[in-house]
């Protein structure tokens, strides 16, 4: 009477139990899931829900960007033209490549090839580092030019570009102040993105360590698969950031 179960059909229950035992053999199988398929689907779904929160997390900043870009268009153009397309474009390509290798890593795990999986994970990480390195170069340049928002922000380059040997048209001082908003958003958005990359690279190292042990090449690919979702999502954010931040108005007026 202690554990009255709502089963009214004993035969199906027994069958269910038997079925469950067949699945219990795998070590990664958690006891509270009935089947591994259920576990896998739950994992994917959970990961997607987490990415949903990420969409909204970046969404707040994207809205701020939309608003201020419309309010202070000239400042955004000037700020955007301060960024280097070769660096930004390369970074986009680098990130896409990294994502490509991550996708291949999932495939390698699915077909249970440990060496390939390791190779692709390493390549993903390497390209992730290349991205972060290039980002560091870009940030460092802004630091030297006093384009970091805050107390040291300097507008002289936008008000008087000729003195700095730039071909840009000068903008009015009041608008030049608004370039700070552009750079605030630039650093907030790319900074948050870079933070996600850094977290991702950290997880990649953990995955490599586990992949080395062969954890993911015996039919259990969920961690690789779910991490790939995360990594691709970070890619997607950049795919929007690149045109929105670097390519606002590159054509001659």
């Amino acid at each position, binding site marked *: 009477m202690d554990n009255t179960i709502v089963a009214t059909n004993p035969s199906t229950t027994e069958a269910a139990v038997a079925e469950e035992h067949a699945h219990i053999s795998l070590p990664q199988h958690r006891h509270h899931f009935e089947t591994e398929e259920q576990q896998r689907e739950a994992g994917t779904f959970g990961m997607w829900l987490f990415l949903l929160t990420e969409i909204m997390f970046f969404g707040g900043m994207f809205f701020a960007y939309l608003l201020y870009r419309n309010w*202070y268009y*000239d400042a955004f153009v000037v700020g955007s033209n301060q960024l280097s397309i070769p660096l930004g474009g390369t970074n986009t390509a680098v990130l896409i490549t990294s994502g490509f290798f991550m996708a291949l890593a999932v495939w390698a795990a699915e077909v249970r090839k440990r060496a390939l999986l390791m190779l692709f994970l390493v390549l993903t990480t390497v390209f992730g580092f290349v991205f972060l390195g290039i980002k560091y170069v870009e940030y460092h340049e802004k630091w030297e030019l006093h384009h970091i928002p805050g107390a040291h922000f300097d507008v002289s380059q936008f008000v008087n570009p000729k003195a700095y040997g730039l071909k840009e048209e000068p*903008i*009015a*001082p*009041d*608008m030049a*102040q608004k370039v700070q908003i552009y750079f605030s958003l630039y650093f907030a958005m790319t900074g948050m993105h870079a933070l996600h990359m850094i977290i991702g690279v950290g997880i990649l190292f953990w995955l490599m360590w586990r992949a080395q042990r062969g954890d993911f090449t015996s039919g259990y690919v969920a961690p690789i698969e779910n991490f790939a979702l995360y990594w691709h999502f970070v890619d997607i954010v950049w795919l929007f950031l690149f045109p929105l931040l670097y390519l606002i108005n590159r054509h001659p007026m």
Partner: protein
Amino acid sequence: MHISQVLWQFLIKWLTASALFLREASTIAPYADALYFFLLTITVIGLVLVGTLVFGFSIRYRKERHPVAEQVEGSTLLEATWTIIPLALFLITFVWGAILYFRIYNPPTNAMNVYIVGKQWMWKAEHPGGQHEINALHVPTGRPVQLTMISQDVFHSFSIPDFRVKREVIPGRYSTVWFQATTPGTYHIFCTQYCGTNHSAMIGEVTVMNPDDYQKWTQQSTSGMSLAQNGERLFASMGCNSCHSGSATARGPNLAGVYASKLQLANGSQVLVNDAYLRDAILNPSEHITAGYAPIMPTYQGQISEDGLIDLVEYIKTLQSNYRVQQTLTTADSNQQAPTTPGAVKP
């Protein structure tokens, strides 16, 4: 019978000092109260209804009287009823509330204007005639009064409960509210938006006076300089007149009669020149270039206080011709004070 002294005083106070309802001292108040009582009525009806249902069913169907429950799935008809009736009531409320909202936030065109500057933690009222008040506001009965408000620092909120009006006072942007007082007397001004340490001390008093008394008050309490005159001084001392000189060859647009006109901007859009536009054009000129002029005006962000901006705005508002501007030019050239003759704003 012995009643404790404290309790006794409390009861006395309860009976004498504590009103359960608020004075209606503006033309808007009765409208707001009408909606309030409508809402109060449906709330009470709703509450009585739910109460009756709960208590009624509890008595009628309590276990002693009704030992076995009858299973009922639901009733589409009943459910539709209590979906549609509340919906209808809420929609009525919405329309009513919206009408009231537009009434409170759309000032009539003939309203007299008073500027309010909020700062931590005081209210400054500036009348066009040059009366400056702190934590006080004098207004006449029977005339619509529009408040053009701005904050120097954080969000404040200007509230006069007896008038049923309230509006947030925002940093960096004018907001307006209007009322027409009906009954002479003094009423509370509260800051209702939390604004830091002395938030609860940011209170003041509106004094509502008969038009005659008000006339007397304006004459007695003027500082001698109207806002426009202050503005004229600023206009000269900040060098605005060197470009906005009104002459045909001037580098800046002619400001005479610009207020309330429609202006063609360099970016192709058309704007109505109002207080907010003038303020913004002084602080962020490059976003407000009049068509046909070069974007050469420097920004005055950080160089001029909100009070100063109000003075300038008021000055430009009153400029009907360029006569006064020319005057400031001559005086500025000769390094003299701007003219201070009161009441000579309009030539």
